[in-house]
Structure formats: structure tokens, C-alpha cells
């Protein structure tokens, strides 16, 4: 399926604009279809979990958010790497566009996780490895967005942000490891994470649909934001031309 994506379409802004122009309506409708189906299925038709009851339904919004928060960062980091290696303008725009989306998903992951944690483990927040890592990831996103906003020269901002993204990716690995370590130091294994028993299809199918829906939403909004950036670039150039003329 990856092979179907014409990477040449993503190589330069012009091709990207025409490619996204054609794809976006489909992507939009697919997103809406998946999300509506997934939510309705999850809320109405999926059976309540025999252990966790109706609260398990929160999984349909929590798991996709958490998954997307990481996927968005992968896109951000990958684009930043491409930017540093090939100096692709479009790669910078992709990274810049992915960040606020990733931050939103991370925020949702944290909030829905808290709402799920209270009925499940009795507390809204637990300094467990995964929520803690997600909190740190949220800060990473905020810092990255702040860097883009604070540096006025967009070219410089792009370079700086790319460096930050790469350093952040290395750090994400280190943080994950150190937080796991820190957790084993402090948690006397009292918290028994309910190991999800093999999920019944009536549960993981709507979950998959929601996850796909979230992913399509991310990609759709990513493309729209990238188009916005391309237009901003053109506006800047046109303005400079008009001033010079």
C-alpha cells in the first residue's frame, strides 16, 4: 500500500499541491466515514467488557489518540531527517504541520487516559511509565512548536526545528528507557496492569476502525496544513516581489 503513494508527488511543492488537491476530498470522506462508524459501533454496539464494564469504551478514544501521538512524532522526526539530509522545503512544512496535530493527540491521550484510569485503577494520574512518557512527549511537542513560533526567519526556524526534532528523537528513546527504569525503582510492583486478555473481535474491530479513522484524520489535516504552508510561502514571495517591483 505504501508503494501506491507516488513519492515523487511529495518531492516538490508544485507536485504536492496537485496531488493533495486530488486526494483530499477522498481522504476527507474516508475520515468521516471511519470516525462515524467507529464511534457509533464503539458506543452502541460493542459489548461491555466483562471485567471493566462500560468504562472499557474509553479505549476507543484513548488508544487511537495515544497511537497517533507517537505516529505524528514519527512523521515529524522522519520529515526533519529528510530536511537535514536533502534540504527539502516540503519536508520542513510536513514537520511543522505535524507538530500541532501531534500535540492535540497527545493531549487527548493524556486526558482520556486519566478518565480511563480513575475507574480502572482508582486514580486520575499515575506516574506509570507510559503516561509519564506521554507527558514528556507533550512537552517535546510544545517546545518544538514554540521554537517555530519564536524564531522569526522561517528558514532558520526550519533548520533549528529539524535539529531539535532529531535530538528529541534520540532523547525520546533515552527517556522511555529511563522512565521504565525509574518506574521499577519506585513502584514495588503493586500496580497490576490488567493484561488485556485476547480481545474479542467485537471489540478490536471497532477499535481498529477508530484507529484508522484517527490516522486518516491526521493525514488529511496534515495535507491541509502543508497546503496552507505552501500558500504562505507563495504569499511571502509575491509580497517580496511586489515590494521590489
Amino acid at each position, binding site marked *: 500500500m505504501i508503494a501506491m503513494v507516488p513519492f515523487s508527488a511529495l518531492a516538490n511543492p508544485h507536485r504536492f499541491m496537485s496531488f493533495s488537491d486530488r486526494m483530499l476530498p477522498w481522504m476527507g470522506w474516508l475520515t468521516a466515514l471511519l470516525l462515524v462508524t467507529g464511534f457509533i459501533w464503539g458506543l452502541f454496539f460493542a459489548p461491555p467488557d466483562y471485567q471493566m464494564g462500560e468504562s472499557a469504551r474509553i479505549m476507543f*478514544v484513548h488508544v487511537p489518540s495515544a497511537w497517533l501521538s507517537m505516529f505524528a512524532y514519527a512523521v515529524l522526526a522522519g520529515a526533519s531527517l529528510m530536511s537535514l539530509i536533502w534540504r527539502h522545503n516540503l519536508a520542513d512544512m510536513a514537520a511543522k504541520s505535524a507538530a500541532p496535530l501531534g500535540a492535540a493527540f497527545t493531549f487527548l491521550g493524556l486526558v482520556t487516559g486519566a478518565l480511563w484510569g480513575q475507574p480502572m485503577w482508582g486514580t486520575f494520574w499515575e506516574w506509570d511509565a507510559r503516561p509519564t512518557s506521554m507527558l514528556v512527549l507533550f512537552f517535546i511537542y510544545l517546545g518544538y512548536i514554540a521554537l517555530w513560533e519564536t524564531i522569526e526567519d522561517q528558514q532558520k526556524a526550519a533548520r533549528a526545528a529539524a535539529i531539535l526534532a532529531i535530538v528529541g528523537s534520540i532523547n525520546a528513546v533515552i527517556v522511555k528507557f529511563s522512565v521504565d527504569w525509574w518506574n521499577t525503582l519506585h513502584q514495588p510492583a503493586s500496580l497490576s496492569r490488567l493484561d488485556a486478555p485476547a480481545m474479542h473481535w467485537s471489540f478490536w474491530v471497532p477499535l481498529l476502525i477508530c484507529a484508522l479513522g484517527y490516522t486518516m484524520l491526521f493525514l488529511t489535516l496534515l495535507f491541509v496544513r502543508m497546503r496552507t504552508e505552501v500558500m504562505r510561502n*507563495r504569499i511571502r514571495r*509575491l509580497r517580496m516581489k511586489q515590494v521590489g517591483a
Partner: protein
Amino acid sequence: MSEFLAMGGYAQFVWPAFMISILVLLGVTVLTMRSYRREQAMLASLEKKNDATAPAEY
């Protein structure tokens, strides 16, 4: 119906979770589309002012 709304006693967790998710996702979508339309409008007006024979620059 009320049983559905009560979500087996977990209503105060399940509904806020879904509501916040829908709200944030909608919000991000709206903001994204709004800045898109804004830039689109600005670009259109700039291009009208610009020389019509100049090639479109990306």
C-alpha cells in the same frame, strides 16, 4: 435509554472522554480549515494584483 446514558455507572468518565475527544478533534479541524481558507483568500487577492503573465511560483 437512560441505562445507555448511565453507561453502567461510568457515565462521568465515558461521556467526558468522548465529548472532549470529539471537541478537540473538531476544534483542530476547524482551526486548520480556517487558516487554510484565510491563506487561500489572501493568495487569491495577491495573485490578482500580481502581473497576470508571471508564472505561478511555488
